[in-house]
């Protein structure tokens, strides 16, 4: 069982002119086994939502709550959140020079499980995960995200998703910058993850394209730090046809 519950979340960032509110009351519940898509224009606060749930120090939570199976996520440190079962595939994965992918994966797996994985099976699992995402076997020796192409970065995020196997995955524009083949490969990885019992997915995207491969149960339209509309997969089709204009003018008019 896993339920991620975000209630009336307010988040601001520090600027030279004082705090600037970016999330203006976001409420969203991802129940056991559900996939939710969040769609919205650039700058609407999608990444802010993802980072705030993951605990990035740049963001100040000024109101609301986030719980995972009832546990207070906001009271946890970044690594405690991961160990509680949250995973964030980042829009811009970070380079860690000199740390090899295999060292990184093993260290993360050890931290999550509280013990080192059995070497033989782990090496097999890593190789299989890399291969399924069409990443070279030598990929494990490269430094984390250093010199990776845009597509390699995203495929590496999904390889981590599969190997670390969290309860709830937040995928922040994992589709952006991918060609159609890479998009399919990445989507298959996400689908393998959510085919398991009870896995929650929050799929953040700017485009409807990926929703053809990963069908969401719910779609939320995100505008100006709030959810402006929600519905089923049909909402994504409407957005595909009409774009975000109608929501943007609505906010502008308010």
């Amino acid at each position, binding site marked *: 069982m896993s339920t991620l519950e975000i209630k009336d979340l307010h988040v601001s960032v520090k600027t030279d002119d004082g705090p600037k509110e970016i999330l203006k009351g976001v409420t969203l519940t991802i129940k056991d086994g559900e996939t939710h898509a969040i769609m919205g224009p650039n700058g609407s606060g999608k990444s802010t939502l993802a980072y705030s749930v993951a605990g990035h120090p*740049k963001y100040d939570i000024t109101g609301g709550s986030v719980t995972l199976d009832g546990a207070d996520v906001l009271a946890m440190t970044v*690594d405690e959140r*991961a160990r509680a079962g949250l995973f964030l595939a980042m829009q811009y994965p*970070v380079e860690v020079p000199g*740390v090899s992918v295999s060292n990184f994966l093993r*260290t*993360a797996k050890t931290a999550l499980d509280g013990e080192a994985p059995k070497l033989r099976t782990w090496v097999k699992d890593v190789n299989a995960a890399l291969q399924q995402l069409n990443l070279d076997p030598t990929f494990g020796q490269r430094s984390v995200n250093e010199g990776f192409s845009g597509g390699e970065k995203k495929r590496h995020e999904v390889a*981590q998703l599969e190997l670390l196997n969290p309860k709830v995955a937040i995928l922040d524009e994992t589709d952006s910058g991918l060609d159609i083949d890479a998009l399919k490969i990445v989507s298959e990885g996400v689908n393998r993850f959510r085919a398991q019992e009870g896995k929650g997915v929050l799929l953040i995207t700017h485009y409807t394209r990926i929703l053809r491969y990963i069908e969401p149960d719910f779609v939320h339209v995100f505008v100006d730090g709030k959810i402006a509309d929600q519905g089923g997969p049909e909402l994504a089709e409407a957005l595909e046809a009409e774009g975000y204009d109608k929501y943007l003018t609505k906010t502008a008019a308010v």
Partner: protein
Amino acid sequence: MTTTLTDAARENLEAGLEVKHQITSHLNPPPSYDVADHPLPVGREEIWRFTPIKRLRGLLDGEASDAELTWDTTLPDGVSLTRISTDEARELGELAPNDRPSALAVALAGGARLLDVPAETELDEPVVLRLTGQGADDLVWGHVVLRVGAFSKATIVLVHTGSARYAATTSVLVGDGAQVNVVSLQDWDDDAVHLGRDAILVGRDATVRHTSVSFGGDVVRMHANVEYAAPGGEAELLGLYFADAGQHLEHRLFADHNQPRTKSNVVYKGALQGQGAHTVWIGNVLIRKVAEGIETYEENRNLVLTDGCQADSVPNLEIETGEIEGAGHASATARFDDEQLFYLRSRGVSEKEARRLVLHGFFQDLIRKVGVPEIEERLTTTVEAELAKNVLKDLV
């Protein structure tokens, strides 16, 4: 006699002089074996302004001493280690000293040790020279020549441990087409003072990699100088240092592009932690008028782990010709990168472990360039031990 020179003649003459190293860099005093040419510094001199002269404990005075470090060596077949006179060492064509301690070392060492790798010898194991100091009160003058003949392939490792007040000139003479890898590890006890000058002369089309690693010692000040005997040589100067509370670790690089189509690539990385930890990196590159078609790049990165540390980093590029392939430098001193820590922690890794991993990576990135598996392993082990001893203890 009075002579009148036409402009063209003067240009020719000047170009000729330049090849003979008569034009001096603004970055370094002129090289000379004569100690009188290197007066006792007061501390304000450009080449001394970062160095805590009081902590050199009389090394600059130039007292005679016949104390030595103990030498324990691994010499592969075909390699010899002998003693030669100071004059013989000079005649081998080493680069003249360019600061007081290196001039004193040559003048007072009473001869040099010559490590000789004959021409066309490919060593399949490293030469290892383990130099150990008997105590911080010993005053030791060192003069070492590492000569690698034409078309040879050799790896030479110098390991400094124990304690001493040690000033040394180490000349690396690289024959045409040779491939040489020199690693100098300064792993002294806490009270050692080491003023070293490694001066490398690169033969035609030869390749040299020189790695300087400084962990221990109270004051360690190392030069790595490169000149080229002919066109086509390549030098890679790598360095790694870790300064703890109170330590002064200084690395001074000088790549003198005195020949066309030569390359230099400098990468030094350091970490500092603890009150009074001080590191200095000076990266001097001179591109002389004759040095057309050269490439040079230098980089220094420092990671400051706690308050109370100081990392000085000064890249200097002096260019006398426009006809270069590429020249660049980068210097950065920073604390831990929040984004890197966040990324690792978002995968469940604790803050302490994330810091350890970032630091490990910071150094590993350099270590894997060293290019000698057994040395890379040893450096990794040394770095991990240093991290365990210092970083894991104090950080969060």
